[in-house]
């Protein structure tokens, strides 16, 4: 690991001021950053420790919820309000990582989780995300875990987070503070597709810090569910996952919100599937039509073609589960 300097911020203003030098980074839970520092993928010159910031509360905001950026994954997952109002979020969080890591990982940090692409994580390989313009080793390499949606000729790395898939389905709003003040960003506008600049993963400006996330009140009669498919029963990243929120009127679907994980270069919201489901009967046939719509633009590479069918079945199963009486 390369050397770095360390400072601890006491409030948000101090954090933003401290992180202004080139090469400075925030550290919260550290579960992604310190891992990547050991691999020398990340080489910050200064770490600004934000663990002392008063951003660790989960509060009601109107009929919705305000979640501080420093709220740990385990606390968010086990929060009574979250379990009651947004089961999909609690389920997604508990399906990710291990109890130890969930005790460390934060809400803000998880929104910025980096890909598990082997080539991104190994500095001996070219990678456009890590070293722009160096090439993509996954494209013709071993790409079983890679994305089938949102890919480009420059990057097929999968976004690894479970929490973000639930947040994407819920349509969370992300609040950030920078040297120019505060602003809010809908999560659907937060992530950037790789395109020709896979090193740019989101719309955060340099030095901006995520302070909190808000969730709209859940609709009446809405039910939600997260289903994750992976190589082992626990402590493994998704090969495919689905976060679904469905408002039912009898057996009729009034509205559906659908996001997919493990298959996209970003947490993947599917307006196509939602459109397909809206106003239809909750039936396997309609779920399958939605799944076809969700994966219509999917592009397989050498080893990950199986994900397309797996993702469809995952979505169908998730919809079956959530619409069960």
């Amino acid at each position: 690991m390369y050397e770095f300097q360390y400072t601890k911020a006491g409030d948000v203003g101090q954090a933003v001021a401290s992180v202004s030098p080139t090469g400075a980074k925030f550290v919260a839970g550290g579960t992604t950053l310190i891992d990547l520092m050991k691999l020398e993928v990340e080489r910050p010159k200064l770490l600004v420790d934000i663990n002392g910031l008063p951003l660790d509360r989960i509060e009601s905001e109107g009929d919705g919820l305000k979640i501080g950026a420093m709220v740990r994954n385990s606390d968010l997952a086990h929060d009574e309000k979250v379990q009651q109002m947004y089961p999909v979020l609690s389920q997604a969080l508990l399906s990710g990582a291990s109890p130890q890591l969930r005790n460390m990982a934060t809400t803000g940090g998880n929104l910025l989780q980096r890909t598990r692409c082997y080539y991104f994580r190994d500095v001996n390989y070219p990678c456009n995300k890590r070293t722009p313009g160096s090439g993509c080793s996954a494209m013709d390499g071993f790409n079983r875990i890679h994305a089938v949606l949102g890919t480009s000729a420059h990057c097929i790395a999968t976004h690894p987070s479970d929490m973000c898939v639930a947040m994407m389905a819920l349509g969370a709003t992300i609040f950030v503070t920078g040297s120019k003040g505060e602003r809010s960003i809908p999560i659907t506008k937060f992530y950037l597709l790789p395109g020709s600049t896979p090193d740019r993963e989101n719309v955060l400006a340099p030095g901006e810090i995520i302070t909190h996330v808000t969730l709209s009140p859940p609709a009446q009669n809405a039910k939600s569910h997260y289903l994750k498919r992976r190589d082992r029963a626990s402590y493994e990243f998704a090969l495919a996952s689905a976060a679904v929120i469905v408002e039912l009127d009898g057996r009729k679907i009034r509205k559906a919100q659908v996001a997919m994980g493990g298959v996209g270069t970003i947490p993947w919201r599917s307006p196509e599937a939602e459109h397909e489901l809206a106003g239809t009967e909750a039936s396997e046939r309609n779920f399958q039509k939605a799944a076809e719509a969700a994966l219509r633009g999917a592009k397989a590479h050498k080893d990950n073609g199986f994900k397309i069918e797996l993702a469809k079945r995952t979505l169908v199963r998730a919809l079956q589960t959530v619409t069960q009486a």
Partner: protein
Amino acid sequence: MKEDSPDEPAKSGKSDSSTKSASQLSRRTFLGNIATVGIATTAGPLLQVGELEAQQVHQPTTDVAEAPTSAGTVPVSLKINGQTKNLQIEPRVTLLDALREHLSLFGTKKGCDHGQCGACTVHVNGRRVNSCLTFAIMHQGDEITTVEGLAKNGELHPIQAAFLEHDAFQCGYCTSGQIMSAVALLKEPCGKDDDAIRECMSGNICRCGAYMNIVAAVRSVRGA
């Protein structure tokens, strides 16, 4: 470890202990030093620095780009198993390395060093964490408990006793991490059945495959 230059670490800081002092040594010198330390038990880089006073607050320079490449060591005060320990270490020393390499608390194990195996599990303010994925300097003021701190007045923690009773290990390398996880699990919202125990213990990998007996040990303490 890279194979191209067996006697020299390929790059600064690539060594297991992630400390500058170790990385600048060849493997031969490093092994020689271990022998010296073993015989003389002098305070070397592998041993506790001693009771240093916290003389100064570390202040980063404002222009990091022009800062010298060596950040150097800083005073770090840790509270471990109820005792305050003052260290002089680099910010890049993980909590795991601080425990093992600077405080001679070898009960906490280094497995993968990337948060994938759980061997390094300790408690920070009563919650279990992977000590390999956090820097020691980030834990000043925290209450840290390692496996050495579980027994009270010579009495094993019930989980420790249950691991012995149920033969919940073979080689023992993952055991302290398993025990730290199991102790934490008792206070966490974890379901009642064995599947829930398995899920709650899934952050700890056992290469020997002692899982059945680990689950039995945890079950016996929970009284399920």
